[in-house]
């Protein structure tokens, strides 16, 4: 059901980034600080229409939605259609993974993080960005926030919950940036 929404409303999903340029740029700036200057060895999982991969010069991505994947492909990203929980990637074959605004859509984030851990080389790292649930007030109602109809199907986590999932999946947390509604964590494969 979730994926049907992305197939059906792919254009609408993509145009959000045009309509919210300031917010989009601030997200790009924040995640960029977590990435090495050479991003050519990074794969973005749940790459969508390529709105992060393209400006961050990330050459390849995986995406379950064919409608979004085709957009990213047309923007020059090498696309594999696949799911994070069932990565079609060999063990210890990737230097780094980017996972932006994806964990909230996963049925089983623990399985997904274990899969990411499996494909990373020892010492490889994951950069994960997500809309965080506030410990006290829950997720803020904000119509300006990401892609209204898409987030109706999302499940939000606190930074602490994601940190615990990462630790339980074999990652060591290296750096966290938690401001406004967004948290970005860089975690290294132990």
């Amino acid at each position, binding site marked *: 059901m979730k994926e049907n929404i992305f197939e059906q409303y792919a254009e609408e999903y993509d145009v959000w980034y045009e309509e919210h340029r300031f917010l989009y740029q601030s997200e790009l700036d924040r995640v960029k600080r977590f990435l090495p200057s050479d991003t050519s060895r990074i794969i973005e999982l749940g790459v969508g229409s390529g709105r992060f991969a393209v400006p961050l010069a990330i050459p390849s991505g995986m995406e379950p939605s064919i409608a979004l994947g085709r957009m990213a492909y047309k923007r020059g990203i090498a696309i594999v259609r696949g799911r994070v929980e069932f990565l*079609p990637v060999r063990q210890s*074959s990737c230097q780094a993974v980017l996972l932006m605004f994806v964990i909230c859509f996963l049925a089983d984030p623990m399985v997904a993080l274990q899969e990411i851990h499996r494909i990373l080389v020892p010492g490889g790292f994951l950069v994960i960005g997500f809309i965080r649930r506030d410990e006290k007030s829950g997720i803020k109602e904000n119509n300006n926030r990401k892609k209204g109809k898409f987030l109706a199907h999302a499940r939000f986590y606190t930074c602490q919950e994601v940190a615990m999932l990462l630790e339980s999946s074999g990652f060591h947390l290296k750096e966290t940036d938690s401001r406004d509604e967004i948290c970005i964590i860089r975690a290294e494969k132990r």
Partner: protein
Amino acid sequence: MKRELHDILCCPVCKGDLTLEVLEEDEREIITGSLTCAACNVVYPIEEGIPNLLPRNRDE
């Protein structure tokens, strides 16, 4: 799909090797073809340059 990508791809279900078959290729990449997991007996298509490796079993 670039040929070198085949080196890191595996079956999404059993994680075994995939056999590449190329039907159409240009100077940049494979346009049409397939990736087959013999262990699962599943053929994953490559269409318009994009391999479809969504998990499936043989009956799907």
